[in-house]
């Protein structure tokens, strides 16, 4: 899932400065699962906003709605009927959701309430860690299901660097990804697979060339 976390409160307040009616939009997708932008978080944020603005002598009216997902146009279109008199939208989605709203409603201000962090997994309730670098050319088939692109600080493709000590990375107190890969491949009897030298990765599939796009003609609706 996309993991996100709330922006500093002062930044959110500043982005809604001078607005009298704000539509607070939660997202029922990834950010609801990582407890950053679902219905409950939207409610907390709206209530906090109303109270603070009241104390500042600049009361604000809020409306709340939580869409099934903010990254799909059919859900974002639901906002249309909520926008009357609204000065701005506070979106609790990831950066994708905020942009989809901005694209659909070009004449209304939309502010992000969250910082989008990474594509990650739940370690335990309340703790998430990055698991995918979205590189566009997956190498998990060569590395036993452990991603060296995102879990190795240097994104190395052919074994650990000299900074790997006792299975730990020198950059952060994380496990060395290549140590994890080595142990797993050993357990699976596939160490010989690691002797194959990985060639330079095709980073043209990565994120440095503008927005990437996937088009599936077989599922397009041409009506």
């Amino acid at each position, binding site marked *: 899932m996309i993991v996100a976390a709330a922006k500093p409160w002062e930044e959110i307040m500043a982005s809604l400065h001078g607005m009298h009616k704000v539509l607070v939009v939660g997202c029922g997708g990834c950010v609801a699962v990582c407890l950053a932008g679902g219905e409950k978080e939207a409610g*907390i944020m709206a*209530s906090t906003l*109303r109270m*603070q603005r009241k*104390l500042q*002598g600049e009361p604000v009216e809020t409306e709340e709605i939580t869409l099934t997902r903010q990254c799909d146009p059919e859900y974002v279109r639901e906002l249309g009927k909520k926008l009357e008199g609204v000065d701005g939208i506070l979106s609790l989605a990831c950066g994708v959701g905020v942009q989809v709203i901005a694209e659909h409603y070009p004449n209304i201000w939309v502010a992000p309430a969250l910082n989008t962090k990474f594509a990650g997994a739940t370690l335990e309730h309340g703790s998430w860690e990055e698991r995918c670098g979205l590189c566009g050319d997956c190498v998990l088939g060569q590395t036993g299901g452990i991603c060296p692109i995102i879990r190795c600080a240097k994104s190395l493709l052919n074994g650990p660097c000299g900074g790997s000590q006792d299975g730990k990375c020198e950059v952060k107190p994380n496990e060395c990804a290549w140590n994890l890969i080595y142990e797993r491949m050993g357990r699976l009897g596939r160490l010989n697979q690691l002797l194959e030298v990985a060639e330079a990765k095709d980073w043209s599939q990565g994120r440095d060339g503008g927005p990437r796009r996937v088009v599936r003609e077989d599922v397009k609706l041409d009506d």
Partner: protein
Amino acid sequence: MSNRDFAPKIVAFCCYYCAYSAADLAGSLRLQYPPTVRLIEQPCSGKIDIRLLLQAFEAGADGVYVAGCLEGDCHFLQGNIRAKKRVNAAKKILDKIGVGGERLEMFNLSGSMGPRFAAIATEMTERILRLGPSPLSTADKGEEGKAE
């Protein structure tokens, strides 16, 4: 408003298995406690979420407390521990926006602690009397004043 005219509104979210029973017991024992406290029965203090706590303040409460079982005695094992974490998170929000986290508290007691229930109601009332009315209700009055 002077402190003498101020009758605080305090909302107490009470776990059915402890504080709510303790309130019954306090009544049976004819214990006196301030009439400032409005009890809301909860199936467990773990039912509390931050939204509900903030909603109470928005709706005009001067103080709010959550009363759950003694730690280790929760009927649902960890509800009171989770409630404490949420109360602490809500306190931070209230501090941040200027309402004041002191107006919110978590208490632990058992169903047999009727006198403790009365003592908590008194303690919280005294605290809110000391702090005065919620700034949110004062802000309301300010707006009314402007309208006049």
